[in-house]
C-alpha cells in the first residue's frame, strides 16, 4: 500500500468517530488553518528593524553581529533585477551556509507612487544545487527600513533556516497588498533567482564511532548555524538510540549540546541561539540552531552532545536532499472583520513611559487568537529602538493566557512610520493579555472582548 492510499483510506473513517475529532475547535478551524498558512509565509517574524544610517551595500552586515568577515566573502552582492510596467524587484544581497539563508530584496514602484502601506506578497523558495525546492524548514520576512528608502521604494529581509543543501534562492513577487485595506495591487508576478556559494563549514567526523554514525549521520557547524541530523526510524532503531535521539529534540531540557574550543573552553549552545527548529521527516529529524552571533568555527574542536564528544573537521556543506515542495502561503488575512467589523477599538489612555522608551497603544484588532495592533513608540534615540533583533535592541511582544503562560507562536512586526509600528501576534490559545516591552518600558494590554467592544471605535 502507498501512503496516499492510506490517506485515501482514512477518508472513509466512520463519521461517528470523525465528528468528535473535527468538532473540537470547529468554529476556529478556518482561522487556525489560515494562520498556519500565514505563519508558513511569515513565521515567528521580525528579524530586523534597522533604521540605521547605512549604505545600500553591506545591509546583511547589520543582520549578522559578530565577526562578519567570517562570511563576507560568501555574500552575494550582484543585484538581480526584474521589472514590469509598474514594479521593479531587486535582489540585493544573500548569503547561505547550506542550512540557513538570508536575503535582502527591495520593491520599487516605477510610477513614483507610494508603497508605504503595502507589504509584498512573495513566495521565496530555498533551492538545492539542482534547482529543486527544498522541503520543510521555516522562513521569516520583515520590512527593513534603510536610509535609501523612499515612499515608492521599500526594502525587505527574508531569512530561512532548517534546510539541507541550500544552494539557490528564488524570489517570486506576486504583488503588493495594502496592509490597511487588504487590497491587492500590482499582481503581475516578478521573479529573481540566484545561485549562492555556501560559506565554509565543519562536519562531524564519524570516526568509526558506531554510536555517532548510527545516531547522527550528519553534524554541520558553520559560522551561522549548527545542524544535527538524527535517525528516528520507527522500525529499525534500537530503544537506546530512540531515547537518545528524542532527548536531542527536547532541547536544553532534554540534552545538552556544547561547543568544545581548541583552547579547552566550552560553550553551551543554548547561550548563542537565536532561532531553533526541529524539522521532522520520515526516518530522520533535523535540529537547526541559528546563532545569535557569528561563530569562528576554526576555533572549535568538537561538539559534545550529552557529554559524548564528536570531533569536527573542515568540509563542504551537504548537497541537496530536495523533494520538490514549493511553499505556499499568503501574507496576511482579514482580521478586523472577525470581531469588530470595520471598526477598530482604540485604547486612548494605555501607555507606559517608565523607561527610556515610551509605548502607547493606538489601535487594536483581535479575536483573542490573532491580534493586530498599532503601537506608538517614542524614544530620544530612535536608532536604539530599531537595532536588529539579534543585536538585542528589539521591542518584544508576547501573549499570555489567564495563568500567565506564553501563548505566542508567531510575531510579525510590520512597517514603522513616524514611530508607529504595526505588530501581529498569533497565539496557540485564547490570550488574556499582550505585553509589549522595550528595555525599561512594558505595556500590558488586556484582551477582554467585552471591554474592547465598549471602547471608542474608529472606522478604517
Amino acid at each position: 500500500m502507498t501512503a496516499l492510499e492510506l490517506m485515501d483510506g482514512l477518508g472513509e473513517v466512520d463519521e461517528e468517530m470523525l465528528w468528535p475529532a473535527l468538532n473540537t475547535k470547529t468554529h476556529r478551524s478556518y482561522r487556525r488553518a489560515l494562520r498556519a498558512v500565514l505563519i508558513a509565509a511569515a513565521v515567528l517574524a521580525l528579524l530586523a528593524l534597522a533604521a540605521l544610517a547605512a549604505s545600500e551595500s553591506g545591509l546583511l552586515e547589520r543582520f549578522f553581529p559578530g565577526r562578519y568577515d567570517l562570511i563576507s566573502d560568501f555574500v552575494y552582492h550582484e543585484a538581480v533585477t526584474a521589472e514590469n510596467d509598474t514594479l521593479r524587484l531587486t535582489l540585493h544581497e544573500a548569503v547561505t551556509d547550506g542550512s540557513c539563508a538570508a536575503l535582502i530584496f527591495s520593491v520599487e514602484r516605477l510610477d513614483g507612487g507610494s508603497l508605504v502601506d503595502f507589504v509584498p506578497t512573495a513566495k521565496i523558495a530555498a533551492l538545492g544545487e539542482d534547482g529543486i525546492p527544498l522541503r520543510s524548514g521555516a522562513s521569516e520576512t520583515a520590512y527593513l527600513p534603510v536610509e535609501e528608502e523612499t515612499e515608492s521604494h521599500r526594502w525587505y529581509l527574508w531569512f530561512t533556516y532548517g534546510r539541507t543543501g541550500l544552494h539557490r534562492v528564488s524570489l517570486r513577487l506576486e504583488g503588493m497588498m495594502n496592509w490597511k485595506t487588504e487590497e491587492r495591487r500590482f499582481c503581475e508576478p516578478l521573479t529573481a533567482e540566484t545561485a549562492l556559494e555556501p560559506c565554509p563549514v565543519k562536519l562531524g567526523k564519524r570516526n568509526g564511532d558506531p554510536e555517532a554514525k548510527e545516531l547522527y549521520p550528519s553534524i554541520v557547524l558553520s559560522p551561522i548555524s549548527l545542524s544535527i541530523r538524527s535517525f528516528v526510524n520507527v522500525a529499525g532503531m534500537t530503544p537506546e538510540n530512540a531515547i537518545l535521539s528524542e532527548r536531542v529534540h527536547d532541547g536544553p531540557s532534554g540534552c545538552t549540546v556544547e561547543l568544545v574550543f581548541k583552547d579547552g573552553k566550552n560553550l553551551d549552545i543554548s547561550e548563542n541561539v537565536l532561532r531553533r527548529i526541529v524539522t521532522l521527516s520520515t526516518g530522520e529529524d533535523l535540529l537547526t540552531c541559528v546563532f545569535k552571533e557569528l561563530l569562528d568555527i576554526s576555533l572549535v574542536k568538537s561538539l559534545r552532545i550529552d557529554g559524548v564528544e564528536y570531533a569536527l573537521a573542515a568540509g563542504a556543506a551537504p548537497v541537496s536532499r530536495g523533494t520538490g515542495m514549493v511553499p505556499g502561503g499568503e501574507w496576511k488575512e482579514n482580521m478586523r472583520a472577525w470581531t469588530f467589523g470595520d471598526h477598530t477599538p482604540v485604547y486612548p489612555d494605555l501607555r507606559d513611559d517608565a523607561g527610556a522608551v515610551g509605548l502607547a497603544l493606538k489601535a487594536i484588532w483581535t479575536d483573542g487568537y490573532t491580534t493586530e495592533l498599532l503601537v506608538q513608540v517614542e524614544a530620544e534615540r530612535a536608532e536604539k529602538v530599531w537595532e536588529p533583533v539579534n543585536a538585542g535592541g528589539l521591542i518584544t511582544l508576547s501573549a499570555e493566557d489567564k495563568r500567565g503562560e506564553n501563548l505566542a507562536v508567531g510575531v510579525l512586526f510590520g512597517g514603522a512610520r513616524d514611530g508607529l509600528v504595526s505588530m501581529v501576534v498569533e497565539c496557540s490559545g485564547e490570550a488574556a493579555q499582550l505585553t509589549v516591552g522595550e528595555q525599561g518600558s512594558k505595556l500590558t494590554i488586556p484582551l477582554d472582548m467585552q471591554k474592547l467592544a465598549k471602547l471608542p471605535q474608529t472606522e478604517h
Partner: protein
Amino acid sequence: MEDREIVELYWQRDERAIEESDKKYGGLCRGVALRVLENIEDSEECVSDTWLRSWNVIPPQRPNLLGAFLARITRNLALDRWRASHAAKRYGGETALALEELGDCVSGESLEDEVARRELARALNAFLRSLPERDRTLFLRRYWAFETLETLAKQEGMSVSALHRRLRRLRAALAECLKKEGIEP
C-alpha cells in the same frame, strides 16, 4: 439551524440549504481545504465544489452528522486537487509532511483492487476504534484534517517532540495492525 433542518432543505431542493451549510460548516470546510491546499483561492473553489457535491448527493443521502459529511467531501475534493497539482510541484506543506509520516506504516506497493481498499477502510475503522479517545482524536486531526504539529502540541499542552513521539507510536501501532490484518506484508 439544526443539521436535520438543513438536510431537510436539501431534500426540498431549497437553495437555502447551501447558504445554511456555509453559515454553519463553511469555516470547518475551509479549514480542511486550506490545510491541504495552502492556497486561499483554491480552497474557496474547493468549498464551492463541496456545496455542489452535497447538493447532488442529498438526496438520496440523508447524513446524520452533516458537519463530518461535508468535511469529508471537502477533504476528498481537496486531496484530489492536491494530487493533481502535486505532480506539478505546486503544493507542499502539511499534506506532504503528513503523507511522509504515514510512509512509516506502508510498504509503498499499490493496493491490488477495490476489495483491498474496502478491507483497508474496515481495518482503519477497527484500528481507530481500538485507540483511546485522545489518541484517536490526535491521529485524525493530524492525518485526516492535516493540522500542524505545532497547533496540536499547543492544544494538547505537550511539546512538539513529545507529540511527534506519540504520533510515531500510533503509526507504529497502525503498521502492526495492518500487518496483522494481512493488508501489508
